[in-house]
Structure formats: C-alpha cells, structure tokens
C-alpha cells in the first residue's frame, strides 16, 4: 500500500486511540454491565450507594414516643390512632436538634382530606364521619373545638 493509504489510516488510528484514552478517564470505572445484562443492567454502580445515602425525613411515630409520651398515649385512645404524628406536624428530620420546632398544619383543609363528605360506594371514604365545610362553622379552625388527639367532643 502506498503512502496515500497509510497517511489517512494513521490519522484514523491516532484518533481512535485518543478517543479510547479519553473514554478511559471520562467514564467512571464502576460503569459497566451487570445483573440482567446490557438491556437493564448497564449503569454506574456507585449510584446505588448515592440513593441509599439520601436523608430520611419522615421518622415515624415511634421516634416521637419517648419525649411526647402524653400526646402519643392520648391519640392512641382515639379514632385518630391510625394517623401518624408527622402527617400534621410535618417531617421530623433531626428534631429536636434540627429543626427545634415543627410547624403544625392546623388548617381546615387538613381535616377535610378525610372529613369532606364524599359518600363513594366501594371506597373506605364513605364510612368516615363528615361535615359540610360550608355550613359547619366555616372559617374557624377545626382545632378550636375539636382536639385532634381526642376528636370526639363528647369524650373531651
């Protein structure tokens, strides 16, 4: 073969080598094919750890139990026992160090998530006691009269 073949071929070989070298540095070393193969298992393995390291924000009601034992006990003896503390008090995060105080959602809208009347057949919603928000003391926070931890007025 003459130099008219070798010269462009040489350029191509150099280019390919340059691309392979830069690829070696750019692509993370844990990137590759695993598990079920190229179609579903072609990924950077370190990303699994990245996701595992995401911070947990909702701690669950057992996290509240020791310091707020009185509140924890009172709600347990009410129909609201099934509701998590954090559903109204917001995610605990690292409370009490960060944040020192949790913002409580006392809005009427929070209560009407369950207690707005939607008597839907074949849904559990139909079985929940409800009031019409337009006629039942409109504009006043429900917690003015109903203690959310002990919502039955007769029991208070």
């Amino acid at each position: 073969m003459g130099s008219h073949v070798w010269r462009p071929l040489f350029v191509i070989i150099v280019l390919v080598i340059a691309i392979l070298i830069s690829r070696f540095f750019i692509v993370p070393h844990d990137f590759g094919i695993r598990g079920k193969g190229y179609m579903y298992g072609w990924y950077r393995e370190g990303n699994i750890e990245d996701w595992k390291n995401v911070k947990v924000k909702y701690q669950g009601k057992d996290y509240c139990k020791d310091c707020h034992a009185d509140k924890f006990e009172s709600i347990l003896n009410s129909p609201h026992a099934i509701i998590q503390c954090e559903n109204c008090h917001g995610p605990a995060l690292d409370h009490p160090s960060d944040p020192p105080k949790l913002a409580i959602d006392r809005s009427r809208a929070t209560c009407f998530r369950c207690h707005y009347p939607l008597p839907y057949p074949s849904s559990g919603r139909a079985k929940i006691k409800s009031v019409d928000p337009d006629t039942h003391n409109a504009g006043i926070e429900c917690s003015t009269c109903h203690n959310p931890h002990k919502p039955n007025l007769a029991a208070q």
Partner: protein
Amino acid sequence: MITRRDFLKYTVKGAAGLALPLAALEIIDSKKLLADISGPGKVRWAFVVDTYKCVGCGLCVKACKLENEVPYDANATRTWVERYVDTKEGKLYADTPKGARDGFTTNKIDLGLGKFQDIKNDDIQRAFFVPKLCNQCENPPCVQACPVGATYQTPDGVVLIDRTWCIGCGYCIMACPYGARFFHPKYKTAEKCNFCYHRITKGLKTACVQACPFGARMIGNIKDPDDPVTKIIKTERVGVLKSEFGTKPQVYYIGLEEEVS
C-alpha cells in the same frame, strides 16, 4: 479476476449478512421471560395497593413529596391518587388535582383547563380512589429506552435514575406506559418513584406506606414467602396495570377495575 456475476452475488450476501441483527441469532430461553424471583439475591421489592381501603386523603402524596424533595408546589409528583367516578348515566370521570397532594376536598371533578364537573351524590353509580406510583417493572421499558445507561434496574428489582449521568433527553418519560416519570424541576433530569430506596434499604417502610392511615399501601419482598405482601399476591385476587404491555409491573392492586389504566 472477479466476474460481474460473482461481484453482485457477494455484494447481496454481504449486505444481507450486515442487515441481520445479532439478536436474531440468539436462541430465546423461555425461562428468561418469567419474572425473576429465582435469581441471585434474597430481595425483590414489590408493592400492594388496596383500592377499597384508599379514601383519597392524599397524605401519601404529601409525605412522598417532602421525603423525596420533589418541589412541593410544582405540578409533578412521584406518586399520585386518581379518583374514578361512574355516573348512573354511564359516564366515567377521572381526575387527580395536583396529584391529590391536598386530597379530594370537593365533589367537583377537575376536567382540566379550569373546568369542573359537578356531580350530585345521587347520580353516582360507583366511585373509588386508585393510588399510583412507579411499577418497578421486571421488564422496564424506560430502562430499555435510555441511550446513556442513566436509568437501570438494581439487583433487588428497583429502577433507579443516575442524576449525574442523565442527559435529560426524555425518552424514558415517553417510554413509560404508566406515566410514572417526569422531569425534576430542580435537577432537570428524569425523576420517578424509587420505592424510597433510601428507606427500604434501611429496613424502613416507604414514606407513603408509613403516612397512609388506612393501610391501603404495602411494600414487601416477594422473595420472602412469609412476607405479608407475598402472601397477598399469592393468595388473593390481585391485578396489575396494563399487563398486555409485557412489562411485568410489580405493583399489585386489590379491587382493580377495567377502566383504570
């Protein structure tokens, strides 16, 4: 010296050979097509939704958005709750205002574009709520679509997205038959439910399962025969969404209706 006849023959043969995909030469193993619960590893996450128990309070959506840092006011969410209302006239309505982040606090159906349909309680034939989330398919089409390997299936069956690797092309969002994917407004990458991977790998329940007061959501390991979720899937009448797509979704529904898709 090559004859013209031979030259044409070789050209046709060569072109035909090049056009043949490598996959055509592979002998398909029928075992590969079954859901992989026999493979290595002790965990395969799966989800059960009981639509009879769901009351549409949306506390799961609120918890999910805060737990997974999906911007609260953006109209994007990893999980959402749909409301289906069948009227006695035979009309079907469905809505999910803001993904039901604030629950359903009106009997008006949100038709979109600021239009609402008022339905009287007496006109309702049946109505119910259906929570939705990523199905963590055994054969995830979103993963097949990704051109850069930024989304993948973990050995325990959860489909994750590598935010550092995603180029934001959006093919996966189009590939998902369930509409479970969206663009993260902050990171500008594809986003979806990952069964709270940071929680389930620490032995916690997902944020939505924990927040649900009615036990409408359950997560478990289908490789563990004693897991309550495995027992429900094996012994009760459960359905999956869009099974005809062959995606083998791993979110099982109790009380699924034909109109839900």
